[in-house]
């Protein structure tokens, strides 16, 4: 079941609402990774509300659905917000995030949460899981596609390149990989922590169809996703993003990788996202 085709303005409004949800959730539990969630916010909004993912909140385990794997699992509050606004999770459940007895675990749990297709968070594994899914769905002659969103820092994991080898070998044309290229990881700038990025060259050497997009522009994101879906083999989008995008004091400030706002910061953030302190 495809969502209705939204206008760009609708998508921007939804992305703002999801960011606001996340800020409230993180504030409520006093824990979380806002920077990483915000750099992925527009991509996840496009997937769920831009007519890309074929999913059905009434049948979260529907076997013909498209799959979404959030390999950068620490950004999951944003995904939970999207699932909530899409109708997979009741709205009142959001403040159970990271609390005891909750379905909303600190990292995505496919066994607990409706709409979560893969248990992720341990960096690098999501891509290999997505490759297995894509292979198996093709084997079963299903039209379902697999979208996986990875961070750029987690590309340092060897398992990612093991998985990309297999994706290329099997020409998994039902697999779309999106890299949230915010150029930062927990310890700082990727250039400083691990040294080498050269993403495009690496991906092309692994024979992936590769395209760069602006990860905060819906025309660019949706155009890129349409292109990737139409590709003959596994396709990869390098989405240029800004960590913390959407709240001015979080943008490009890596201390927001994992941090909880003060009361003043919270009020300011909410105001920027069009909300008010409840």
């Amino acid at each position, binding site marked *: 079941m495809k969502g209705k085709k939204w206008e760009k303005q609708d998508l921007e409004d939804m992305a703002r609402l999801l960011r606001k949800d996340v800020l409230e959730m993180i504030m409520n539990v006093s824990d979380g990774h806002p920077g990483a969630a915000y750099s992925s916010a527009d991509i996840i909004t496009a997937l769920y509300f831009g007519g890309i993912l074929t999913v059905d909140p009434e049948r979260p385990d529907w076997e013909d659905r498209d799959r979404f794997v959030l390999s950068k699992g620490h950004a999951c509050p944003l995904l939970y917000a999207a699932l909530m606004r899409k109708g997979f999770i009741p709205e009142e459940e959001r403040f159970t995030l990271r609390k005891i007895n909750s379905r909303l675990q600190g990292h995505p*749990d496919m*066994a607990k949460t409706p709409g979560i297709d893969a*248990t992720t968070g341990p960096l690098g*594994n999501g891509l*290999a*899981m997505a*490759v297995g899914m894509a292979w198996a769905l093709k*084997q*079963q002659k299903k039209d379902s596609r697999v979208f996986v969103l990875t961070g750029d820092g987690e590309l340092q994991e060897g398992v990612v390149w093991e*998985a990309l080898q297999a994706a290329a070998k099997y020409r998994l044309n039902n697999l779309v990989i999106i890299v949230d290229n915010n150029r930062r990881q927990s310890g700082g700038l990727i250039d400083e922590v691990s040294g080498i990025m050269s993403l495009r060259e690496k991906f092309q050497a692994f024979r992936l169809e590769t395209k760069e997009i602006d990860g905060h522009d819906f025309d660019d994101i949706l155009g890129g996703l349409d292109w990737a879906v139409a590709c003959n083999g596994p396709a990869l989008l390098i989405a240029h993003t800004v960590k913390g995008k959407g709240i001015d004091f979080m943008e490009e400030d890596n201390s927001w990788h994992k941090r909880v706002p003060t009361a003043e910061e919270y009020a300011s953030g909410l105001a920027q996202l069009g909300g008010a302190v409840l």
Partner: protein
Amino acid sequence: MRTESTRRAVTEGLYDIMEKDKSLVLVSSDSTLIIKAKDFMEDFPDHVMELGISEQAAMAAAAGIASTGMKPVYVSYAVFASQRACEQFRNAVAYPGLNVKVVGANGGMGSGEREGVTHQGLEDIGIMRAIPGTTVLSPSDAGQVRKAVSAMMGIDGPVYLRIGSGKDPVFWEEDTPFEIGKPKEFFRSGEDLVIFTHGFVLPAVREACEKLAASGVGVCAVEVGTIKPLNEKALKPYLENCRASLVVEDHNVIGGLGSAVCEMSAALCPRPVIRIGLQDRFSESGTPEELFAKYGITPENIVNKAQEALK
């Protein structure tokens, strides 16, 4: 002693499964030759996912395959399946309870094909046993492995199956069943001493039992082919009736069946538990006979330890 390959037995078990269930997938990290699966690959090319030498991606891909409802069997060496891909098994497979079967070859030093420590699974059972929700099986010959493959496919959840080198002693009559969770008593002259064991050391245990019985010791021997979940109900009476127990296994004495029996005994029925196996050290290259002799998994050593325990 007649030998038969427990590795090839896995492929034969997969053929049996394919007759009734086409959702099977053999996942390989360039490991199909381990189980001599060339014919299976030719007969069922669409049922083999070959990722190349990449155990971590293979394990995580198996999780992805299982999430679509298919039934992946990932084959590798015991040491790499349980250690190099351990985190993927724990987080991607076992935590969500996915239906992935993992087969580990070269389980133990005697199954190491002279390859040496790097290719011997010496801690695999301890590692896999420590992961919640995981069934751990260690059948003791090729016929048992064939049946264990069928049995494990009937479990909806993660299973670790330990196999050998390909030159594995035949111990059981061909028509002996392998039932998950069911221990098998294979020697009894009395109950003063009980020996719990698994894997390819059963012939040595039987020989030791014969010697002990000849010298008047009441001994019984029990194969525990399902190490987790441990069938405490079936095993507890042996502890209750004995004066001492021995565990014999080709595994480090830390973490394996010996540890499982100690845990059970401490909780349910305290008895001396003597563990015969690798005494928390690494082994080396050599034939199984040489290794077992050097590291103490011999009928003579079992007899000596039994007599000490009964003093």
